[in-house]
């Protein structure tokens, strides 16, 4: 499917890097059809196509957000290659007889940097698990402070703390708890 002509590849890439909603939408919508075509013609369903495509799209997004990454091919080739890789992995895991793979686009041999990194995936899962364990009210306090950048005063008001010192204390305790839970799962390579 052709990309909409009003945006150039370069514009879209820099748009994604800036987290521009419109760039994300244009790229997402323009490239789904070809991945759907691949997955469905290789023993997959529409749902499989959606899952695999979204996984690949996340990879594209997170790579582009990493300043050290340089995209060496067209966006559509990248998405197709990564989706293809992910889908073949899934098929192999299901140990279904795969047989002949039907390809409809050109693919790039994925270099190390372009391979769907399992690190990011792992870290996401770890934080997800840690946050679930952390529970409330800590999760809301930490997300309000570190993500939504709310002031301590606002947080104190929202959570109903009598003064700022209390709120700060609570935030501190929550942070310590999260660190404890999170690093418990984390085994650093150097064993420290």
């Amino acid at each position: 499917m052709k990309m909409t002509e009003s945006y150039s590849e370069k514009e879209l890439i820099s748009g994604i890097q800036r987290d521009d909603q419109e760039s994300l939408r244009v790229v997402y919508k323009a490239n789904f059809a070809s991945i759907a075509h691949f997955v469905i013609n290789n023993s997959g369903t529409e749902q499989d196509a959606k899952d695999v495509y979204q996984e690949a799209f996340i990879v594209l997004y997170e790579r582009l957000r990493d300043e050290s990454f340089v995209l060496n091919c067209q966006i559509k080739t990248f998405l197709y290659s990564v989706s293809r890789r992910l889908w073949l992995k899934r098929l192999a895991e299901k140990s279904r007889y795969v047989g002949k793979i039907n390809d409809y686009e050109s693919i790039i041999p994925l270099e190390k940097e372009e391979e769907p990194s399992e690190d990011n995936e792992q870290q996401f899962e770890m934080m997800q698990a840690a946050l679930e364990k952390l529970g409330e009210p800590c999760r809301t306090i930490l997300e309000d402070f570190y993500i939504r950048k709310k002031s301590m005063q606002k947080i104190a008001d929202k959570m109903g703390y009598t003064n700022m010192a209390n709120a700060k204390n609570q935030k501190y305790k929550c942070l310590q708890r999260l660190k404890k839970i999170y690093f418990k799962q984390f085994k650093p390579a150097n064993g420290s």
Partner: protein
Amino acid sequence: MEPQDNYKYDLIDDYLNGNLSESELAEFNHQLEQDPSFAQEVAEQRLIVNQLQAHHRRNILKKQMNLFHQEIEQEESYQRTLPQPIKVIHLWRKYAPSVAVAASVVLIAVFTSVFTLHTLDHVRSLKKQQSSYYKALRRDLNIVKQKQDKIAQEQKQDDKIQEVKQYGATAFVISPYGYLVTNYHVIKNADSIYIEIHHKDQPMRLQVKEVMRNIKADLAILRIVDSSFIGFAELPYAFRNDEAELGEEVYTLAYPRRDMVYGEGSISAKSGYQEDTTTYQISIPVNPGNSGGPLLDEQGNLLGIVSGKHTHMDGATFAIKAKYLEEMIQQLNTDMIAQIPLNIPKKSSINYLKRPEQIKKLKDFVYVVQVYDSKGL
């Protein structure tokens, strides 16, 4: 908690956010060098905050992607551009060249018109595929001719074929490995059983064999034994877990005649003929040819198998509850009758589609079943 701990983390936060003044920054860096445990804490803090933010960003992205996806689905062109799996090509490899040509032409037309598919390389590789199909076809054409002659002979010799044709019914796919289900009473006197696909007025037949029967439930599981068969696509429907409700809207697909027929109605009773608890009574009028067809709920989940058996007695229609089929499949697996264990499909890929779109997906899994009984009827 000691107030200085609190202060320390506030300081680290300020550092990470770049909020320290020049002199504060200098002091901070100095401390980093001097105190390795402090450096460790700063590193941990940075990691946790980054991970928190990355986690949040990804969740936002997921929400955005689902929004975009909804837009794709709502766009009119969506259903038309979604591909149908080309497994059908494999089934017909043995048969008439015209089919391969038609199929290849359709393939090429689809590729070039629906997806602005680009490279000449791609078309070239298709041509290569075509020529290998032709080679295979030329090889097999003699066998086809022989088979067709044989069938023509059988049809000429046996004028009971007219009556046998009325014993055509419906069967539907329960596994991509070539397993189907129909009513037991349809195949009980069969010498040979075929499923029939219609393509451009040319009927293609694949021979099937009964692998399991449940006389009480009036079900029979069949397996395709034709060597040219490679596989079906993954099943789009799921088996429904629970029983249907009274008044629930349901629909059927079947072959009471050459063309597939759709029927809709509702669950009239949770039991069947003479209070039989193995069947539902449904308000859809059927003929014997509907026997063996699937009964589906609004989401396109399998509720049961239509049985035309007692139709003329009561004016009512009955369908065997899906759980009996499920039990049969489990039995099949336990007894290892099938070479590969059959999965009971629990994941539907059609339940968010509108009815005509569901049917489009389902119709490739419902077939005419024809029973030949030369012993006389």
